[in-house]
């Protein structure tokens, strides 16, 4: 429904803002982000490196692209400002990982590390906690409310993609935002997902797809310290790396999103047998509470790992599978190779086998270059603006439960991002 041009105009303005922070012109930043941004790429996985981490649970505010703000709880790097989601913890296989956890919240909290074994809490085996009647109160040892601490440690034995989250009242605390990603790199190297030759990827093309959801009434109740009836739980916001579209495609550590540091634009080059032989890697994590079905256009992902395990048979057989719907369950992680082939090599010299309509006979999108060809910019209708820089392709990737692209009534504002395909190097792209 397009009763007027206002909505798309508004989106265009937001997008211009989003892209105007591109490149490395990061501008003024605060605390943790300045530290991380100094080493993190503008696009792609933005690691906080360990293996010893200090993590605070604290409160903060995020912005949604419908203009709303939401009160959150999240994990942040120790002593640094609030961020959501929690920092991407990157370690190497075999590391002894230590997470010193400080809880500034007004109730007991904790961190669980699903997929890790022999986790210690203050040096003793971590255990579920029970009240006096024998009823479980937390999935692991807690840091007491209002400034308590707990130190968790484990050996990162198996490479892969993992989730960490609150184990204390997770139906409240995890949904309030206490979750983050843990990446364990294999001994084979940082350009492999697992210790398998067929899990090799292009390190510059490693991306996080961290999926969460928000019932704004639950968050409002927590902010006002009021009870919340979980039977009324009803999600209105769906987030990708802690943002909603079009904020999702802004760079990592974009200045105007001070508490939402992680972008999700994927930027790659086409397959080339010599210059670019290996695929990219998308690390999917579902930290929400229902299944999400994510649909990358333009390629089938090759699912090579789930929940920190390569998809392989008992004798090492490859049991990976191609998917155009990455349907990931709550709490699951999937490792998905991604590659785009310029299958038809269309160009000015090898034109598409159809007459391109006159520009007055088509509606153009703001990422369209004006030309069908990779690396070519063409003419656009008068009065239209394009965010296309160098004839690069933009191919969407989104949740296919399409109502989850909505932000409480505003369409095209949820779990959406784009795959940006640049022309082969050397090119004219900034």
């Amino acid at each position, binding site marked *: 429904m397009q009763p007027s041009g206002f909505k798309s105009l508004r989106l265009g303005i937001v997008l211009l803002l989003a892209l105007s922070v591109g490149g490395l012109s990061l501008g003024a930043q605060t605390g943790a982000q300045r530290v991380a941004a100094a080493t993190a790429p503008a696009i792609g996985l933005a690691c906080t490196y360990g293996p010893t981490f200090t993590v605070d649970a604290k409160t903060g505010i995020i912005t949604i692209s419908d203009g709303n703000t939401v009160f959150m709880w999240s994990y942040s790097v120790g002593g640094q400002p609030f961020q959501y989601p929690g920092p991407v913890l990157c370690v190497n296989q075999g590391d002894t990982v230590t997470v010193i956890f400080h809880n500034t919240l007004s109730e007991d909290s904790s961190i669980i590390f699903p997929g890790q074994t022999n986790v210690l809490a203050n040096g003793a085996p971590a255990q579920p906690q029970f009240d006096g009647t024998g009823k479980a109160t937390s999935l692991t040892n807690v840091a007491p409310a209002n400034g308590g601490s707990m130190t968790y440690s484990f050996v990162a034995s198996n490479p892969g993609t993992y989730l960490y989250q609150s184990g204390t009242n997770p139906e409240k605390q995890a949904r309030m935002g206490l979750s983050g990603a843990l990446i364990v790199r294999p001994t084979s190297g940082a350009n492999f997902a697992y210790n398998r030759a067929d899990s090799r990827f292009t390190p510059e093309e490693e991306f996080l797809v961290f999926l969460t959801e928000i019932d704004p009434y639950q968050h409002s109740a927590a902010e006002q310290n009021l009870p919340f009836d979980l039977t009324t739980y009803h999600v209105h916001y769906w987030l990708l790396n802690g943002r909603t579209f079009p904020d999702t495609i802004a760079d990592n550590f974009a200045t105007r999103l001070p508490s939402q540091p992680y972008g999700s634009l994927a930027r790659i080059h086409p397959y080339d047998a010599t210059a670019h032989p290996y695929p990219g890697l998308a690390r999917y994590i579902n930290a929400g509470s229902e299944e999400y079905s994510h649909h990358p256009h333009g390629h*089938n992902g*090759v699912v090579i790992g789930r929940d920190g395990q390569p998809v392989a048979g008992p004798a090492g057989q490859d049991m990976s599978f191609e998917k155009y719907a990455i349907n990931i369950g709550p709490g699951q992680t999937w490792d998905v190779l991604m590659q785009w082939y310029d299958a038809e090599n269309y160009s000015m010299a090898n034109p598409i086998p159809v007459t391109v309509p006159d520009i007055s006979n088509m509606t153009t999108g703001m990422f369209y270059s004006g030309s069908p060809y990779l690396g070519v910019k063409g003419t656009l209708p008068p009065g239209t603006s394009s965010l296309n820089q160098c004839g690069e392709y933009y191919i969407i990737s989104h949740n296919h439960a399409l109502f989850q692209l909505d932000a409480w009534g505003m369409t095209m504002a949820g779990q959406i991002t784009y795959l940006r395909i640049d022309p082969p190097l050397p090119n004219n792209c900034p």
Partner: protein
Amino acid sequence: MKKHISRRDFLKLAGGAAVIAAGVGVLPPFVRKALAPDEVVEAQTPAPDLYWAGTDGWIYLPPDPPVGFYFPDDYAPAPFNTYIFGFRNVTGLTTVQKNNQKNHAQHNAPLFWANQYDPAHPKDFRVQLTNLGLGQRPDLVDSHTLHWHGFRNVIPFFDGEPTGSISVPIGRDFTYVYRPRDPGTYMYHCHVEDVEHVHMGMTGPVFIRPLQNGNTALYPSGKYVYNDGDGSTGHDREFVMFMSEVWAEAHWCDSHIQLPDWSDYHADFSLLNGRVYPDTIAPNSPINAATSINAHSVQRDANGELVAPVGYPQLQYQPLSSLITCKPGERVLLRFINLGFREAAMTLAGIKMRIVGRDATLMRGRDGTDTSYVTNTVLASAGESFDAIFTAPAYTGGSGSSGHGYDTYMVYNRRLTQVSNLSAGGFGGQATEVRVYPSGVAAQQYPNDWGM
């Protein structure tokens, strides 16, 4: 068209020829793409294989009980009750007939199919799209597109995602050109305002037949789902099972110039091939088999209007049956496609299915490891497809057949909220039947053909 082959293309062609002899389908996907030759020489601007029109229209769902004041829609012309957006196949219609189809969309959007691109006999597959506008909503000027969901390595120009490329305004035409190199089961939809246009019905099934078809050495019928190399996807009959949903409030909003809050979405009706049970087992609309080359050629009257299924005037714009007919011992392919927004658990009671494909991919690891599996239930997410094959059991004539002359096996969504028509008790929604006849089922002339 100017033919230009670079050195890189030449190497691809040379390598491709050798590998095609060995069967491209068994190669790892990375290699498969790179080795495929990519030159097509055809006459200038050949006619499209199919011509599609986007517009709005009306369909029928069981009207009792009503859903608030949203359903049945008080604007609907009898015998219909639900407003939709959708596509129509206008291939072969005159301009006048084509323009008559404004406000006469069908649901689901028409199935189409094509053969896998054959490098030895290169031919592009062309689908022309026009936009007829919306009869019920002259205030809206939405463009439309055709997004082929799952098409690998598409360029944005042919992807139909409007932000990264172009879309088709009212009264204009655009031709999508495809070289479908990967056989399997897909879906397509308009991607403009996609939550609205998809949910309103601009969505349908599409599949690609493999190059291996015609090889009767691997399976007698010579019909396969993929280039399996061993006949494991061979089958005798095929039925598309396309799943979509209707949230009555959203459909009412669109006909009444209102906007729903999509984050309140829920499915009131769950549809199989555009209908709910028991309409799912009503006949197909009359189809001209001889002209059903890339899509069902549903019979049309002098105005270009769809001819309704015999005895079901209310299903005029829901032409596709879901009834599965077969004979004992036959292998039957079910192409499950979910373009609803909720997971569906499609269960075949009493017969095991083998899942041979998913998301237009043969169930094989990159090293060829067989990952197919046997199940009673296909758990399909939003935007996911499955290829399931079952072997029809022997005809028993037992109590279940009750003298009908066939055995019945139910197919239904075990997500029980989606297997009712909102009424108290009784099957509805995403359900259909497999009927095994002892004889008398002729060879299929097109997908979902009953053969009788």
